């Protein structure tokens, strides 16, 4: 087990280290692609092997990492079924992306580096997944952020890529800081960051001690802060803006990092932290997830950039997962995570294939962006979506009719689309989405909670919209007549290294692994999360918890709870997840979800295939709504605006201020800081601190000059000083 996990982690790390060492010696590694891919495949195989060895009652494998007096920080792995499933998902998708990239990235001047970064990413992601403690998770967490940064900015000559990678890193880091503060809160309370019981009790055990005490509010805050990390990483509202921009990276990166794995890490983290989530923090998470789902879905409707449609789709789907966890459907969330990982990776790779087809030369990153690259102000983040700003090879308006040219791509993408749209029964996406909707509705009914009813409705609408925009994508890309003949001529099916991964993923978009999640012997019963009665849930129960029974049980940690779980718990009516079988809520949810999905597909068909309805007409009719969607709810503008408001006092500089002149969030911060703070530091350091010092020096110097002036050179002046001095001394000391 230790050997396997070591291989899983070290194989990709070694691949990266080889690259780094050779690079340092200024020798490129021509076969980095093979090395990385094999490393990844090895990790995948080991993950599969690990799958069979999984201990039903896992114990963390830990070592003491840092010992400080009474406090020890340990590092270790915790391998339970969820972990292993994640490992398999990550290694599998990663392997496929590696293979795909061998075709997609072929001919890139930094081809080896790409694979090295992918390896580093894989290592970080795997480390995150297996860590048994918050510190380890945080380490992996930041490392995947780094890799995301490096890979988004892989074509860093493009200013938009350079901006996007920075924006991605910084935006997620805002969330990470929240997570870190949350960690500090937990650490201060529990003196440990281990989650599970090892040599000492972990947080999940210790948190029981808080039950019923006044610390519940505190725990809620800590939970929400930890969740902040997930908000950043999983691109939840309001920190979602980086993900669409992150599409500046190579498409395989988008598939691996920004669809399947890293962004899902937030969901994974939230799920992992489930035992410490209180009712109110859960509700916050649920709302954030729900809002994200609907907001991103609506934005996706009006995008034309194929990758951005997928990006917003990803955001939306991540919202679903968060909603599930927030609503207590822990397993549903994770289940959707896995299914989504496959079909969304497939969609991205498919789109990559399309883009590749349109642009076999792989030089687009050098060409399209030269025209309006603007060095004066680092202003790119805002206007990507406007017409010509979309790279032509990604603009769906240039596509159409590709299904004949690229049959493999078409079919695989169609499968994925059917899956994500929730087409019933034979596609995995249907099942996972249904679990979520069902879970939320169940919670709502069970608690009679208005919040959860609202969330259910939101989720349902979002699901419908998902079906709509996904089919819009399919119709615009693969059906109809080619819009751009020239480009259409160039298009061709991708080489086998690219299509094989597509096929594998397409296979996985069918419900082939679903049963894993519903095997009670394998996936331990999730939280016996005794969430309160709804009235408490609605009115911030933490303030009242001291007189409310509140208990937490844990996934595979507490034997008692595990046992209870196997017997379906002492409170099976509250069992939050689908493995209890279909309750009425689930049935209702399933029916409704089929209806909305069908409706969405139908609308899409009418709009974009049959042209019975005119998208233009609708958008004109609902101009304000359209604008809202088109401008992505003005989130970027909002960030810019807030920051700009800070600079209003410097209006002279910004006399010609105009919303579109201002940067994206990071550049906004940068600009504001540069101007305001440069002025301030200039003022403060030079005028106040140095100023005081200089003033003192000046005064000293002046006094020196004055004293010099007394030294007139005339001896009688000196004598005056002598005699006057004597008189003064006598007078002063007589007075004293």
């Amino acid at each position, binding site marked *: 087990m230790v050997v396997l996990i070591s291989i899983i982690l070290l194989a990709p790390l070694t691949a990266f280290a080889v690259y780094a060492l050779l690079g340092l010696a200024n020798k490129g590694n021509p076969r980095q692609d093979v090395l990385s891919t094999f490393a990844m495949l090895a990790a995948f195989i080991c993950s599969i092997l690990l799958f069979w060895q999984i201990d039903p009652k896992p114990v963390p494998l830990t070592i003491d990492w840092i010992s400080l007096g009474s406090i020890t920080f340990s590092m270790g792995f915790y391998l339970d079924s969820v972990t292993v499933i994640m490992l398999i998902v990550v290694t599998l998708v990663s392997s496929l992306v590696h293979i795909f990239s061998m075709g997609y990235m072929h001919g890139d001047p930094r081809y080896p580096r790409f694979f090295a970064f992918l390896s580093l990413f894989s290592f970080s992601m795997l480390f995150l997944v297996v860590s048994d403690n918050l510190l380890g998770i945080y380490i992996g967490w930041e490392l995947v952020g780094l890799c995301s940064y490096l890979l988004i900015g892989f074509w860093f000559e493009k200013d938009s890529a350079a901006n996007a990678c920075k924006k991605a890193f910084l935006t997620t880091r805002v969330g990470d800081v929240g997570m870190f503060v949350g960690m500090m809160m937990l650490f201060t309370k529990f003196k440990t960051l281990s989650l599970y019981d090892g040599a000492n009790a972990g947080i999940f055990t210790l948190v029981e001690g808080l039950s019923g005490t006044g610390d519940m509010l505190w725990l809620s805050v800590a939970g929400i802060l930890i969740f902040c990390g997930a908000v950043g990483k999983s691109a939840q509202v309001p920190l979602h803006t980086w993900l669409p921009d992150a599409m500046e990276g190579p498409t395989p990166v988008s598939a691996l990092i920004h669809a399947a794995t890293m962004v899902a890490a937030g969901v994974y983290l939230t799920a992992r932290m489930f035992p410490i989530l209180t009712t109110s923090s859960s509700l916050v998470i649920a709302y954030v997830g729900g809002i994200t789902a609907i907001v991103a879905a609506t934005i996706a409707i009006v995008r034309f950039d194929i990758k951005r449609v997928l990006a917003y789709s990803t955001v939306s789907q991540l919202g679903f997962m968060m909603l599930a966890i927030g609503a207590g459907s822990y397993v549903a969330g994770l289940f959707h995570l896995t299914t989504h990982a496959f079909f969304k990776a497939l969609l991205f790779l498919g789109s990559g294939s399309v883009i590749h087809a349109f642009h076999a030369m792989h030089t687009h990153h050098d060409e399209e962006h030269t025209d309006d690259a603007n060095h004066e102000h680092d202003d790119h983040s805002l206007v990507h979506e406007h017409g010509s700003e979309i790279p032509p090879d990604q603009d769906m308006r240039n596509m159409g009719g590709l299904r004949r040219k690229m049959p493999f791509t078409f079919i695989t993408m169609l499968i994925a689309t059917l899956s994500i749209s929730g087409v019933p029964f034979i596609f995995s996406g249907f099942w996972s989405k249904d679990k979520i909707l069902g879970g939320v509705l169940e919670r709502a009914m069970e608690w009679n909670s208005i919040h959860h009813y609202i969330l259910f409705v939101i989720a349902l609408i979002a699901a419908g919209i998902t079906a709509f925009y996904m089919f819009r994508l399919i119709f615009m890309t693969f059906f109809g007549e080619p819009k751009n003949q020239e480009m259409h001529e160039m298009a061709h099916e991708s080489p086998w290294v690219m299509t094989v991964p597509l096929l594998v993923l397409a296979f996985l978009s069918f419900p082939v692994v679903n049963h894993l999640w519903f095997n009670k012997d394998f996936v331990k019963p999730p939280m016996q999360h005794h969430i309160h009665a709804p009235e408490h849930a609605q009115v911030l129960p933490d303030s009242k918890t001291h007189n409310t029974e509140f208990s937490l049980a844990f996934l595979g940690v507490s034997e008692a709870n595990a046992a209870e779980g196997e017997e379906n718990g002492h409170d099976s009516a509250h069992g939050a997840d689908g493995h209890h079988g279909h309750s009425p809520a689930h049935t209702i949810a399933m029916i409704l979800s089929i209806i909305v999905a069908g409706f969405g597909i139908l609308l899409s068909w009418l709009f974009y295939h049959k042209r019975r309805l005119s998208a233009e007409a609708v958008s004109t009719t609902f101009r304000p709504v359209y604008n809202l969607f088109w401008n992505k709810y003005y989130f970027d503008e909002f960030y810019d605006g807030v920051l700009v408001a800070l600079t209003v006092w410097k209006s002279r500089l910004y006399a010609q201020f105009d919303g579109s002149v201002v940067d994206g969030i990071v550049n906004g911060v940068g600009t504001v800081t540069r101007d305001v703070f440069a002025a301030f530091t200039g003022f403060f350091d030079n005028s106040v601190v140095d100023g005081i010092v200089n003033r003192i020096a000046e005064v000293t110097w002046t006094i020196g000059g004055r004293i010099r002036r007394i030294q007139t050179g005339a001896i*009688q002046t000196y004598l*005056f000083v002598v*005699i*006057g001095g*004597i*008189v003064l001394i*006598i*007078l002063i000391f007589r007075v004293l």
Partner: protein
Amino acid sequence: MEITLKTLIFYGFALMTIGSAFAVVTVRNIVHAAFALMVTLFGVAGLYVFLQADFLAATQVIVYVGGILVLILFGVMMTSGRLQMRIHIERGQLILGGGITLALLMLLLTVIANTPKWKNLSDDGTVFVPTTSRIGKLILNEAFLLPFEIASVLLLVALIGAALISRKEIRD
């Protein structure tokens, strides 16, 4: 204190000393000042006599009047043309100097008036004893031999120095 001839003479000397000293510091002609200084020096010599310091009075006359004053007059003649006989003074400097001097004087007078040790000490009734031989003994044989010898070195130094600095002039 009854007014006797002795006191009259004393006050005469006192007035002469102070008056001429006042002239020294006020007259605008340097030669006049030099002569006023002579009177002051004589006056002080007179006071020495009243203090029964006979040898000292003689020394005062000889050294000061005979030596220093002549030196000063030579100095005046060598450095001052007719036009430079007038001593420059400036009003501001005068006022400031006068002020400081007055303050100093007031302080000194306060001390003199308020020091019990110095009060009511009169010289009536003591017998005059010539001091010269005692001075000679003290200087040459007793406590003051060392100062005497050092003073001789000092005078030698002054001699050499004055000559040296003057020689500069001669060689020019």
